[in-house]
């Protein structure tokens, strides 16, 4: 696969056409029908949570939030391959991969809703918190991969970043280290073609992102990021490559963020309705649904039922989340060191005295 789709050829791996037809049988992934259905449901679930979260933000029930709408195949197609012992080293736009690991919408809302517990993920293992400083996580992934290798532990590190993140030096350092050390890392670039408003041509002169892998002596491949099968298949191959001890792989999933950069952004300022329309036609969920329906594995009725079920579930979970106990003052001091040093203890006591003084004045 990595030879056939060598990034110098400028050919993107696509298996499922926008019409939902298999157009490339040679590289179809090994995946059971049952799992495909599971993944489809996760994509629908992720979108439900995503769209509802944006609407909660609009209602003033949530702070700023970074939407995932449109990138479901790219994050779930790649992330669905993660096993328990693998690591997720994320940025902030791969909610579907988080859900696959057992992170719940409540965790995500706690994070974006301003609660410190939102970084804890009690049900997920080997999952780093959401990272907003662009690209810093890419080097951590190399470090974690190296750490696993040194300790002869099982597991592959899946790290995510955007097209914009590839301009940071961290991208270079991360790929360089991982390839020299043959660290078990899959570098996944969700290329949604924009860094906020800056389109790809203004970020880089290279014809694609996958091609950057060549400089590091690792395989790279550009896949259709709105095609679940292409994303899954490339990830499966990358995992095999790593398991054979051959080191890291760079996957570029070409996709499109259908929503805003964050809820504080207005994309109509920098992209056209026509462009948005083109990508609506290429929607990843629509595409997989067309396939499943044609295969008689799924129906429109199933779909309506599922969406409704998820909407109700998510709504109920959000109402519960809104009752979550507030964060306590103590927690501000609590997580700074493994054990609280004396000066911090003193500071905390002084703060409590101040609060008592304030109380006595009111």
């Amino acid at each position, binding site marked *: 696969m990595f030879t056939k789709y060598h990034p110098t050829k400028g050919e993107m791996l696509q298996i499922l056409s926008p019409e939902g037809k298999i157009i490339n049988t040679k590289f179809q992934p090994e995946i059971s029908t049952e799992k495909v259905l599971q993944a489809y449901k996760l994509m629908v679930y992720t979108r439900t949570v995503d769209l509802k979260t944006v609407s909660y933000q609009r209602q003033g029930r949530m*702070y*700023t939030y970074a939407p995932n709408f449109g990138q479901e195949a790219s994050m779930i197609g790649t992330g669905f391959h993660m096993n328990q012992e693998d690591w997720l080293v994320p940025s902030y736009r791969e909610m579907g991969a988080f859900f696959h690991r057992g992170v719940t919408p409540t965790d995500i809302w706690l994070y974006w809703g*301003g*609660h*410190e517990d*939102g970084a804890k993920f009690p049900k997920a293992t080997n999952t780093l918190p959401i990272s*907003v*400083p*662009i*690209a810093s996580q890419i080097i951590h992934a190399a470090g974690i991969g190296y750490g696993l290798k040194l300790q002869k532990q099982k597991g592959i590190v899946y790290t995510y970043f955007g097209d*914009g*993140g590839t*301009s*940071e*030096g961290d991208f270079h350092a991360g790929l360089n280290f991982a390839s020299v050390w043959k660290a078990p890392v899959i570098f996944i670039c969700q290329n949604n073609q924009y*860094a*906020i*408003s*800056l389109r790809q041509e*203004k*970020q*880089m002169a290279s014809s694609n992102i996958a091609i950057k892998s060549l400089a590091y002596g690792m395989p790279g491949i550009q896949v259709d990021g709105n095609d679940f099968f292409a994303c899954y298949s490339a990830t499966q191959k990358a995992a095999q490559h790593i398991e054979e001890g051959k080191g890291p792989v760079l996957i570029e999933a070409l996709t499109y963020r259908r929503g805003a950069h964050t809820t504080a952004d207005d994309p109509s*300022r*920098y992209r056209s309705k026509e462009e948005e329309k083109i990508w609506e036609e290429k929607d990843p969920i629509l595409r997989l649904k067309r396939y499943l329906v044609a295969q008689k594995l799924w129906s429109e009725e199933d779909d309506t039922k599922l969406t409704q079920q998820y909407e109700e579930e998510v709504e109920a979970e959000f109402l519960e989340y809104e009752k979550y106990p*507030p*964060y306590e*003052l103590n*927690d*501000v*001091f609590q997580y*700074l060191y493994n054990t609280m040093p004396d*000066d*911090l203890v003193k*500071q905390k006591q002084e*703060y409590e005295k*101040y609060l008592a*003084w*304030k109380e006595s*004045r009111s």
Partner: protein
Amino acid sequence: MPEITVREALRQAMDEEMARDDRVFLMGEEVAEYNGAYKVSQGLWEKYGDRRVIDTPITEYGFTGVGVGAAMAGLRPIIEWMTYNFSAMAYDQVLNNAAKTLHMSGGQINVPIVFRGPNGPAEFLSSQHSQALQSIYAHIPGLKVVSFSTAYDGKGLLKTAIRDDNPVMFLECELMYGWKDEVPEEEYLIPFGKADIKRAGKDVTLISYSKPVRMVLQAAEKLAEEGIDAEVLDLRSIRPLDEESIYKSVRKTNRCVVIDESWPFASVGSHVAWLVSTNCFDDLDAQVEFISSEDVPMPYNHTLELAVQPSVEKIVKAAKKVLYV
């Protein structure tokens, strides 16, 4: 005099200086077509085009370093960091290059560059995006560091910064961009190294700079209700620091509270408090009080993020403490 926002005042300063001097250009993430993440560069790209208002890829290290190089070549770059938090990625270019080149080239190559962007806490931005980093930069010889608390000061100081022949760290605040005050239409500049009395008083000197000044003024009003007449001194320029104005005020009131929204340890505020303690020892009727943010990363939760920062209440309490009331 027209009232304008801080955002508009900063935009005018850049616009006027770009019109005046073709060597001045603006570079950073989202500054051109998007008009800046906080809209400070509104309209500049339309007016000056791609040559002088430049959108960069996301590499703070890269565009900061390119700016330093361009300054060495005789240009006068204004580098916008989307926030000062991202200056961390570019730190080596500031610390070891911008601040050192004149010194290390034996005075031959100067770096006339302005680094600007919002610094310090805003709202709901959590630990990695709410940091007040002035103390880190004020620590470095070779840099100038300035802040402001009004649109008027912001405009005058930014123009001075752009004309300065040295690297200048220009500190803005996200929450201040919408603040308004009177700014004259005719041109003016504000020199570095001059503090400003924002409220004259005789009982206690409250020293601050940047966004907290407004809060300090509110505290002064609260104190006035209790019959305490506070003087509020806005440092504006941190390096160079106007020590004379500080001492003059403290020698008048004999009492001093320093308010700084950065962390307490080795900070601008702790340094000023030490200067006052040393140089006004015989004039002080009470120990100097110092209010900073708590010594912890910024919580995300809104109640807590307010709780760890300086507040009107904390300032009132400290002022009363030095007055023994």
